[in-house]
């Protein structure tokens, strides 16, 4: 978030004042977040917002009229003095049937104003419109506790199956995308507010939704159905790309994992990254630094480019070995390298993602180090720690990683562009 450099603890207090004064309502400054349902970027979300605004206008008119009458009655008929209170009671009338009928009719009319666009949009938002159906791009999204797998049925890789990514969904911009919604465990819900409202991923039920990003961009999404303790940190990103860029991205993704140049004597002497021990900064975002948040889409594009100069081949090679030795391969696929597991996200091109841990942490070496060192801190109950690092039944530690080993794993994973 673009925050000014005022003390972070003080910032909310300072902002609370104008907000309390109702300015929020006037300026809409509370509706410009990364998952705003008002800052819509595609036809589905736009239809939903337009319909929402119909309901807002209708109810606002009713509120003004009814509220004015209520306020008037409260002021006008108020007993002001003790004498008022002891006065003869007012006439004991029992109601007026015509008034009632009139008000019921008016209410029904207001609801019809809402009902007509509601029905129209129920059909529109349910399925890709006929004229565009042939052009729709298909994705299968699968919910796991607590991350998302994305499969591309249209991109079949020889001898492997469809292209698979995790937690960052890349789609073509300006084209309808039909997302099949599946889950392997409990109910999850797929929600990218700027592109479309949510639809649930329910076991034994083949749901779908459609969405479209009008422009290339970087969009935030999140699971929207309580799915266990770490539900709040089951997040994902959607990156929409122009036609050419999307083709390039696909071509790169279909490649097996990248191998760094073999280690030379030179590389051995390269300085190793130094990681700070993990500290939380109140008010600081975990999923994006200030620079990142200024333009996440540019940051994503930057992430796609390998940086051979900054790499330490010896360390990356050691990381690749550790990835096997420490049994990471049992849960993670690294296509073309050793990993074959499917219980965790596919990491074939993890270095090219902007986030790790299901959209929770920015994908920097420091953050990846923090994550590997203590995944349970960021995502309590996650299966990498509970079942991977430790045996949940006994609490016995199964995988122990020292700082050097984590360094090597980070170097390896970061090289997987």
């Amino acid at each position, binding site marked *: 978030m673009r925050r000014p450099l005022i003390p972070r603890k003080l910032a909310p207090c300072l902002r609370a004042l104008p907000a309390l004064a109702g300015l929020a309502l006037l300026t809409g400054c509370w*509706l410009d977040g990364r998952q705003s349902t008002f800052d819509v970027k595609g036809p589905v979300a736009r239809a939903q917002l337009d319909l929402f605004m119909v309901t807002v206008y209708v109810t606002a008119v009713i509120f003004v009229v009814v509220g004015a009458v209520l306020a008037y009655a409260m002021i006008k008929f108020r*007993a002001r003095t003790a004498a008022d209170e002891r006065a003869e009671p007012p006439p004991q009338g029992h109601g007026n049937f015509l008034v009632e009928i009139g008000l019921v009719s008016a209410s029904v009319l207001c609801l019809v104003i809402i009902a007509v666009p*509601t029905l129209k949009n129920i059909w529109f938002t349910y399925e890709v419109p006929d004229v565009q159906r042939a052009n729709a791009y298909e994705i299968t999204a699968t919910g796991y506790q607590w991350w998302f797998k994305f499969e591309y049925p249209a991109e079949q890789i020889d001898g492997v199956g469809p292209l698979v990514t995790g937690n960052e969904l890349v789609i073509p911009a300006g084209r309808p995308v039909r997302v099949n919604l599946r889950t392997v465990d409990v109910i999850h819900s797929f929600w990218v507010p700027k592109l*479309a409202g949510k639809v649930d991923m329910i076991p034994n039920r083949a749901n779908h939704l459609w969405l479209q990003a009008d422009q290339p961009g970087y969009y935030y999404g999140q699971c929207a159905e309580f799915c266990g303790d770490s539900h709040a940190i089951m997040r994902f990103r959607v990156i929409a790309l122009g036609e050419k860029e999307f083709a390039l991205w696909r071509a790169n993704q279909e490649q097996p994992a990248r191998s760094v140049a073999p280690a030379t004597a030179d590389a051995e002497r390269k300085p190793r990254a130094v990681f700070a021990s993990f500290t939380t900064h109140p008010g600081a975002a975990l999923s994006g630094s200030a620079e990142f948040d200024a333009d996440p889409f540019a940051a994503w594009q930057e992430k796609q480019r390998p940086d051979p100069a900054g790499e330490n081949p010896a360390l990356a090679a050691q990381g690749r070995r550790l990835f096997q030795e420490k049994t990471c391969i049992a849960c993670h696929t690294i296509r073309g390298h050793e990993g074959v597991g499917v219980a965790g996200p596919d990491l074939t091109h993890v270095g090219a993602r902007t986030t790790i841990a299901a959209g929770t942490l920015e994908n920097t070496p420091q953050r990846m180090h923090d994550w590997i060192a203590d995944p349970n801190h960021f995502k309590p109950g996650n299966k990498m720690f509970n079942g991977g690092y430790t045996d949940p039944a006994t609490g016995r530690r199964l995988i122990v990683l020292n700082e050097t080993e984590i360094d090597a794993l980070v170097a390896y994973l970061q090289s997987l562009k």
Partner: protein
Amino acid sequence: MAEAPAKSAFTGHDQPAGAKSFILFRRPTAKTGLVAWLTTVDHKKIGMLYGFFAACFFLLGGVEALLIRTQLLVPNNHFVSAHFYSELFTMHGTTMIFLAVMPLNAAFFNLLVPIQIGARDVAFPRLNAFSLWVFVAGAIILNAGWFLKAGAPAAGWFGYAPLTSKTFTPDISADLWTVGLQVLGVSSIVASLNFIATIVNLRAPGLTMMRLPVFTWMALITSFLIIMAMPSIAIALVEVIFDRHFGTNFFEVSNGGQPILWQHLFWIFGHPEVYILILPAMGYISEILPTFSRRPLFGYPIVVFSGAMIGFIGFGVWSHHMFTTGMGTVATSAFALATMAIAVPTGVKIFNWIGTLWGGHLRMRPPMLFALGFIWLFMMGGFSGVMHSAAPADSQQHNSYFVVAHFHYVLIGGSTFALLAAIHYWFPKFFGRTINEFWGKVSFWVIFVGFNTTFFPMHFLGLNGMPRRTWTYDANMGWNEGNFISSLGAYLLGLGILIYLAAAVWSYFRGEKAGPDPWDARTLEWSIPSPPPEYNFAVIPTVHARDAWWYEKSHPAEIAREKSAHARDEAAHGGIHLPDQSWYPLVAAAGLLTAGLCFAHDNFVGAIAGGAILFAGIYLWSLEGPGGYHVHPETPADAASH
């Protein structure tokens, strides 16, 4: 509470032929002390116990809410753990709905319904005690997890399958939840049958249905909703229990179970449940506004009819909680339209309340302030409800903080404000003292401001994409300010509730003494002393009009004549008959508690033993018979006729 009657000449126990004098327990006769409360069958004492337990759970649920808000005060907070947070919001929802608002309403049903219909107790006094103690048993089972290794239930208050399965909740917290709710369902159904029987059968002479006080009408409709809605969740809970204990596959995904079935069964109960929580509130408001406007309720038949309509349509809108489950276009449209339809009878009520104020002499006492606050806030909650009926728009708001804002406007702004109004209004009737007016008004304003500060920003948080049940959130989402303000508001709201309670407790001991009719009110409860005697009415009243007491006040000579005639008739029948106290409702409920706790622990021997105690209790209570005794109070009518 109830003073011994001025001339409490006990004429000795009636002994029905063949009945034993006692079995296992001697029939208790204590009128004060612990035994009196544990064995009472007096609807007023039972109502107070309901109120006491519900108030405790209301505070517990409030503390849970404050812990939730403290966790969300700042982004990426680790004030509570993710699992404890899941327990907190699960138990906050479950507690507030089942252990606070429902039993508070049950408290008022107990306190008011018999008196408003001119009766001396409910139709089945011992059954009434049984539903109270079963409620306590269910509450204990639900909360037992806090003290066990398994922890409290943590799958959300609507416990969506398959999160409640053995796979995803291997510990017994889910068993405590299912069994606890099942036990509470028993309590609710038993109580509702009792109130239906009471309202249908025990009305005073002349009290036709269309003269019933609106609160009693709403109690009747609510009772029908409960007996029709509860079986649905009972079935759903049985299915979860069977999946967990006996290997069935209702929701077992790997064997073809359908988790979506749980949602349908749950919401067929869950949506009427919303009206179970709000219809009594509409009842309180429909009593309080006329009293403090000094006018009859505007459009009484339409208010009653719309209440029934709400109850009826309320069974046809459940899937609006499921607009995002991919129901398809036709089902979604049907439920969207039904949901819009239910807004009409709800709106009609608001129009009629405003019509009641119109042309009145509004006396701004604390009950009236809370009632007016109710109208404003409930209206807001209604508007966001209409917004949800537009299904495509709802797919953005569903499970977001917008929904959290919506239902708190309805359940705090609606139900709770109405309850706070009702407590102020009827406090003098049952405790003989009025709550301090100044501190009552202060508490109103603090609660009103605190409430809106807490929940109004949540609309924006939801529209800004914040999902509910969020243990934490990142700092770059644009949610920091809204959450910070909301949390501060929650502390203010908590302070307001404390002021409210402190004023009530202080007034219980030191408040201004109230006469029988401190508010110049309109319904029968105000015609009897404050606090009411055990037998409520020295003489059963005859009802001549809708606001029966208002009519009595304006026709004193006619009423006095009538009462003395009735008093003579009643004396000729041997005086006022009251039922004996009994241990068995408590014993039976204790059996159910034992059975529930043992079953949740897979201890089937204990469960069967508990079941045996339950049935023994019920059998013995049938065997001991109603018993009863006569009292012969000096009536005002007597005095007048001497």
